[in-house]
């Protein structure tokens, strides 16, 4: 029995993918000699999430994020390893388990297309057998939090992508799940919608103490919600630890924002990212940032100087560039 909400140990998923060369001859040959390639979508992944924790699950396309989330939610059977979520084995898909989780995928539509979202919410009530009082309270609370009071009576087909996504999320959480698997919940949405959904997830987590695993290609989502991230690449965990630790460990450079008393060419000190009059942004190797800063202060009259970490997107790109076969790191 684990005290963690989610416990994963040595989780592995291997797909057997048939493949053949192009052309008629290859097609005929494949009739008698079928070639199957093993694809290790997830390989020996281990981690735990404490109850109430929000963790960013990051990786490039095809890294194994969605496969992992599908195994955690019970949609896929693992090829190996152990998974326990709220004390349940997800692949058994027990009703008692399914009532406590939700999986929101940014590209899925579970609402009744021709009807107002309110009708779909009513259906959720019946599916999850939510007591009427609790259902009405939760529904009204969520509608208010998402600011969609004027939209819930419109047929879903008449809503914008962002509005539909808000409804999807409300519908997915009406039964007040204890574990949320959110797979790209802000995919394709504008900045305002993204912000609203982020704040909703944060509020839900705070009010209901839910555990959240979030994948997103928008680092703003991750920075706003997650203190901890798990980075996965080629099916293996590359990093598991604090988001700030990820920057410390992987940021290869720092950015110096310099305002000179008189314009000058600073190309010899590092890579000039931008130069507008006396304002220069310089990218320098992380290890040399202090020494270069000292040299700049000694050689030029500076009216302002800032030292900044690179944008988190750049750091993540750096992590993905790291060899996937090195042991997982934690921070």
């Amino acid at each position: 029995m684990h005290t963690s909400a989610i416990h994963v140990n040595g989780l592995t998923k291997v797909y057997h993918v048939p493949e053949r060369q192009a052309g008629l001859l290859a097609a005929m040959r494949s009739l008698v000699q079928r070639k199957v390639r093993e694809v290790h979508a997830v390989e020996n992944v281990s981690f735990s999430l404490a109850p109430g924790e929000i963790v960013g699950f990051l990786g490039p396309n095809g890294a194994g994020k969605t496969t992992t989330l599908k195994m955690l939610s019970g949609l896929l059977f693992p090829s190996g390893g152990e998974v326990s979520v709220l004390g349940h084995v997800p692949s058994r898909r027990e009703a008692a388990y399914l009532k406590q989780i939700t999986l929101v995928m940014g590209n899925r539509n579970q609402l009744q297309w021709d009807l107002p979202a309110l009708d779909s919410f009513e259906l959720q009530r019946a599916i999850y057998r939510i007591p009427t009082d609790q259902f009405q309270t939760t529904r009204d609370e969520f509608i208010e939090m998402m600011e969609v009071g004027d939209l819930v009576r419109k047929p879903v087909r008449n809503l914008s992508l962002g509005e539909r996504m808000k409804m999807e999320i409300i519908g997915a959480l009406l039964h007040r799940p204890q574990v949320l698997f959110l797979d790209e919940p802000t995919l394709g949405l504008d900045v305002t919608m993204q912000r609203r959904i982020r704040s909703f997830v944060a509020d839900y987590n705070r009010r209901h103490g839910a555990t959240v695993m979030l994948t997103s290609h928008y680092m703003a989502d991750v920075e706003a919600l997650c203190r901890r991230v798990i980075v996965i690449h080629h099916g293996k965990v590359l990093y598991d630890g604090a988001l700030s630790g990820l920057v410390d460990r992987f940021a290869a450079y720092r950015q110096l924002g310099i305002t000179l008393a008189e314009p000058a060419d600073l190309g010899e000190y590092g890579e000039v990212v931008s130069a507008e009059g006396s304002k220069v942004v310089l990218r320098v190797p992380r290890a040399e940032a202090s020494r270069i800063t000292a040299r700049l202060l000694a050689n030029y009259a500076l009216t302002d100087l800032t030292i900044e970490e690179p944008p988190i997107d750049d750091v993540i790109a750096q992590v993905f560039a790291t060899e996937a076969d090195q042991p997982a790191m934690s921070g």
Partner: protein
Amino acid sequence: MLDYYWTMARTAIITQFQYRTANYFYMIGMIAEPVIYLVVWSTIATAQGGEVGGFTPGAFAAYYIVWTLVRNMNIVFTPYGWEWRIKRGELSAALLRPIHPLHQDLAYFGGWKLVVIVLWLPIAAILALIFQPTLNPTPLEIGVFAIAIWGAYLIRSMFLWLLGMITFWTTRVSALYELYFAVELLLSGRLVPMSLLPPWARDLALFMPFQWTFGFPIEALVGTLSTTELLTGLAIQVLWILIGLGLVQLVWRAGVRRYGAVGG
């Protein structure tokens, strides 16, 4: 569970009433098939001195007018829809709900049937005015018919679910579906009343579920069955429902395991 069935059926009713015009055209389009059968058999009956195998033109009219409703009760989630359901991710969504997806289909299409019955009444009235059916059902026949059309719906739902679930293993099953539908057309009472089939075909049909989804409900209302046959028919419907349900459960478990292994 009743609450779920009612809520889902209500959702289907609201949705289908939004598409009432489309539903009407769909139903009117379906009338062409029985009207052709009716005209052909009535012509043969008249040519043969007024009847064929005990069916007068009026009896044929009754058979094929009731046929139109039973045909609609036979419309369930098609096996072709399974591939679409998997591709669109709807099966994954259904698997995440704490309720078997079979309930979803039974409840949704059940709700749709209620709309169909309401829309069918004026169509049946017009057909009756044109073709003058001989139809004098007893209260027992009406009662058995009212139950049998839902029995038919359940049997066909189970067997088409079974066919559709083959999609878990392969999507190239159109030929198999076509074969199934061809056998069903011949041995169900849809193309021709069961009593007009040759004896060997009737014997073959005894071991298949088809006549209990089509011929039996029609015959229950048009008055060709004895009380014993009516009640035995309902019992056989229950048996086929249970056989179908058992097979669905068996294949479903294996199918979901397969789906979980290869992904959706």
